[in-house]
């Protein structure tokens, strides 16, 4: 499969997903409203804390909150859409038709992640506009900071591949990973600085790449540069995650092929 064919296939998934989203009209509207409500809630919360004296966060706590939820949105979508992809096709009953393609199985996984990325982009624009126009929070998103945001998204896709593979064999595993993944909100500084955590918990924070993604985005917006540590950690973590993801997916696929669990849901 050449590059052109690969992107044609990826695009087919993106179009299919948008058609499917559009077929659920109320869900579609909710999908558009959700980030507006989300950014409003945290915008007001940040402003209240700023009015009460603030936390000393650069750009104010409302800026801290908004950058946190925008970055988290990209990371969450990157992780969940890729990890959910195979299981969803199995559930619908279309997995066999996709598997019968001569292409590699990573196509539906990466395509679903890409499809989720387009939703994140739309939500990102909405949140940016609400933050700017309603709360007067100026997000100085430069090209490097946006690229770093994309890198943050890419860095979790590898882990999504791994979960997608494990979910072929153990259907309930995704619920376990959902709990673990949401605990990252606590450790990684989405809503409050990592420094506010007990010192033992801060060691866990520093072991999770998402912490560096959030710090890198915030620093690039408020100070105009990305810290070197974050610039090194993110691509390395992404590559390690991708390697782990691909190996896990292959191993799980092989086991599913041996046990006859590939088509079964």
């Amino acid at each position, binding site marked *: 499969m050449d590059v052109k064919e690969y992107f044609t296939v990826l695009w087919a998934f993106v179009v*299919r997903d948008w058609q499917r989203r559009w077929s659920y009209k109320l869900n579609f509207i909710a999908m558009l409203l959700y980030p507006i409500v989300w950014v409003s809630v945290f915008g007001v919360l940040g402003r209240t804390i700023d009015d009460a004296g603030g936390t000393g966060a650069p750009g104010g706590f409302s800026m801290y909150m908004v950058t946190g939820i925008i970055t988290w949105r990209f990371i969450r979508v990157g992780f969940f859409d890729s990890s959910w992809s195979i299981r969803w096709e199995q559930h619908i009953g279309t997995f066999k038709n996709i598997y019968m393609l001569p292409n590699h199985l990573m196509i539906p996984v990466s395509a679903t992640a890409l499809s989720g990325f387009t939703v994140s982009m739309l939500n990102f624009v909405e949140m940016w506009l609400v933050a700017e126009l309603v709360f007067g929070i100026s997000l100085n998103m430069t090209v490097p900071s946006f690229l770093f945001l994309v890198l943050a998204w890419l860095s979790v896709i590898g882990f999504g591949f791994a979960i997608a593979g494990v979910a072929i064999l153990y259907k309930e595993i995704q619920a376990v990973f959902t709990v673990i993944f949401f605990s990252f909100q606590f450790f990684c500084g989405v809503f409050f600085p990592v420094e506010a955590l007990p010192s033992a918990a801060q060691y866990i924070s520093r072991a999770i790449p998402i912490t560096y993604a959030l710090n890198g985005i915030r620093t690039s917006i408020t100070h105009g540069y990305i810290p070197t540590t974050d610039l090194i950690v993110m691509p390395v973590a992404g590559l390690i995650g991708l390697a782990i993801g691909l190996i896990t997916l292959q191993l799980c696929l092989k086991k599913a092929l041996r046990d006859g669990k590939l088509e079964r849901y």
Partner: protein
Amino acid sequence: MIIKVQDLRKEFNGTTALDGISFRVKTGEVFGLLGPNGAGKTTTVKIMSTMLLPDEGIVEIGGYDVLRRPQKVRAMVDIITARDKFYRRLTAYQNMSFFSRLYGVENWKDKMEDYGERLGLEKKDYEKRLADYSTGMRQKLNLVRNLIRDTPILFLDEPTLGLDPVSSRKFRSLLKDIMDREEKTVIFTSHNMFEVEELCERIAILNKGRITSVGEPRELKKRIFPKRLVEFTLAKEDVLNLRDNAIDHIEKKGNKVRVYLEDGDRIHEVIEKIVNNVRVSDLSVKEPTLEEAFIRHTEEDERDQEEATSWM
């Protein structure tokens, strides 16, 4: 030979699903795998289509080993089952557009409308969501999806399961039409003897993971169940007194008579004796159905297996 299966074995948690089956299929042949539920038909098809790994044995599709070159195999084969699904919230056009892009098919819309028309689907049907399709319509669209993809080998794994008798009959007739025109190699699995007899050029009978017989449906029936049957109505005042080595037994119900022949090749001699001996009307010769042959064969096979086990 486009398909070669040799000494194929597969176990699931200690239960033998396939116990060393072997068969070959020629290019353009319609080959049937006939067997009761749990005989190993779907397992065989799944292995041939790279959806399941065998424990032992060789499977080559178009010269490619399913274990070494699965991607090459997948490019050559497609499966149709009654379990196949589409995206219910999307229209037929949207579904087909998606799958055509995946398969790299050009002019998919023209092809879809052309094949669809031959299968009895109308253009207005394509604007409907799949959620509004009947099982029969969905199965037709499933066939269209395969025809658009146009693989040289097609596996039909109990494709009429769940269809009502009328839809099932229509679907078989469509398949027959497609098979005649398209020059595809087809593996057809079913436990429905009638379907297999109607569609397949050769059949392998599978029972408990073993192939117990392979041949053309007619030859298979003759081999497994050589009896033929002569039915007639006897004139009231006549008494039938018929003796011949070819006759297995005679059944009489009122003036309706059934003569079962052990040796089907001597049927003409026996009929001649009957018409010379008594006055008859409504005389007809009946062949056993594949169903009768299959049931008898499966029962014999199971008896043989039980006897073999009792010696151990």
